[in-house]
């Protein structure tokens, strides 16, 4: 894993608990204690009602592909051998949308609204990424 050449996330003050969750193979999102709204990326106030109390809540890890693109151009040397690769906007069952990769299937098999589930990829001793694989509809 020491030869990992892609960008490694640099957690912010707000996102640190999220990345610690991912490291433990749990997808945590902030969920408002007052209105129940879940959001991403993490921030201090609920974007829906601006309440300042929220709880890190584990997502089911299930969702759908809201949209996706296929990178053919290499923007970073770490992805030289990866193109073409898919970056997707995943809509979790709980509502928030987040960027990730679709793994395990060819880019031409990816479609909007296809069901997906989270899979965790340990990229270094201390960092894990949440990626998504095709799932059965439910």
């Amino acid at each position, binding site marked *: 894993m020491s030869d990992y050449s892609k960008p490694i996330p640099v957690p912010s003050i707000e996102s640190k608990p999220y990345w610690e969750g991912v490291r433990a193979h749990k997808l945590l999102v902030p969920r408002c204690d007052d209105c129940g709204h879940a959001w991403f990326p993490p921030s201090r106030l609920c974007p829906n009602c601006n309440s300042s109390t929220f709880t890190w809540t584990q997502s089911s890890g299930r969702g759908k592909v809201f*949209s996706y693109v296929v990178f053919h151009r290499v923007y970073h040397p770490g992805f030289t051998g990866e193109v073409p690769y898919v970056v997707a906007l995943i809509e979790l069952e709980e509502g928030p949308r987040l960027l990730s990769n679709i793994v395990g299937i060819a880019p031409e098999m990816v479609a909007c609204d296809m069901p997906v589930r989270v899979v965790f990829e340990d990229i270094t001793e201390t960092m894990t990424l949440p990626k998504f694989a095709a799932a059965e509809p439910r």
Partner: protein
Amino acid sequence: MSELRDKYAIIGTGKSRLGRVEGVSALGLLEDAMKQALDEAGLTNKDIDGIVCRGPDDIYSHHQLMGQRLGINARFSTTLDNGGASQILAVTLAVMAIQAGLATTVLCGYGRDSWSRTNVGKDKKQTDKRQEPNLIPPAQRPREHGPEFGYFGAVAPHAFGARRHMFEYGTTREDFAAIAIAFREHATRNPEAVMRKPLTLEDYMAARLIVDPFGLYDCSLVSDGAGAVVVTSMERARSLKSRPVAIKGFGTFNNTKGWFVDDHMVSTAAAESAQQAYRMAGLGPKDVDCAQIYDCFTYMVLTQLEDYGFCKKGEGGAFARSGALKLDGELPVNTSGGQLSEAHVEGMLQIVEGARQLQGVYAPDRQVPGAEIALISGHGGNTVCHSTLILGKA
């Protein structure tokens, strides 16, 4: 806001050389464009008491540097930060400042050296360390929730919108191609345009993919260039030797909750911005004789055609393929070639083009015959900011 309709005017426009302009900085290009705008307005630096401008994201307090270079002490002076929506916002802010009594004559403009700075790495002899092949200053680049998945650049967010639009409405790459081809056709008539070789559907389809669904010709150019306009009251404009263009309406809206939220990527902030501008101008989409639409990518034109009410949501592709966008079509769009084929100067050239079409300065093969109303759009920031300007023949 309708009480401001026709009370203010653009009285001079300017453009620098465009494309690959060696030996001139981003600030220098804007000096050229501002000087041309002043000349056209019949004014000098002594007549200007307001500056609203913008340049590359790493130039701090840009307006102060322009004031220094042009020798202007300004009563009202600032730099904007709404990406491609900033340039129309500069004109809007100029009107607001004059209306509030903070200035009388405001110089607005935008200049960049994007071609020179992104191509510097390919020339090994160039060792200026301040320049590097990335337009986003290092401190502003995302460090999580994107780059780790290989998500970089401005192409991808727009490509996400294009893909979702294709899914929801059956839009195709042929629809995007019709936009790129129409603007290229306009560029062949514009001696200042960077890309003047006609483009065919075969060329479009054969070009390399960048971030699918976008290929090379869906993406705007990387350019050096600048544009500028002078804004003053219509009353003052009438006393000058210039050929004024009336500011009939403006609007702005920002989907600042985010591009990825709700339906923002398929129904953009242009919709609300348009309604404000139409209301102020007392006009609707049917009154527009030519439109200069922010075309960072083909898809952004397609969705804006819908959001501005030139056609129904979901019908932008069919509208583009009908030939409507061509110079002799129902709604000539981006008559200079736009950012896809003339040069990408963050929407500033679109303002210049709209004003000049209404001044009727062009040769017949490049002029929209009898153009009385021009609509101009600006889009940018993190893809969520939008602004609209409606100009009229004065």
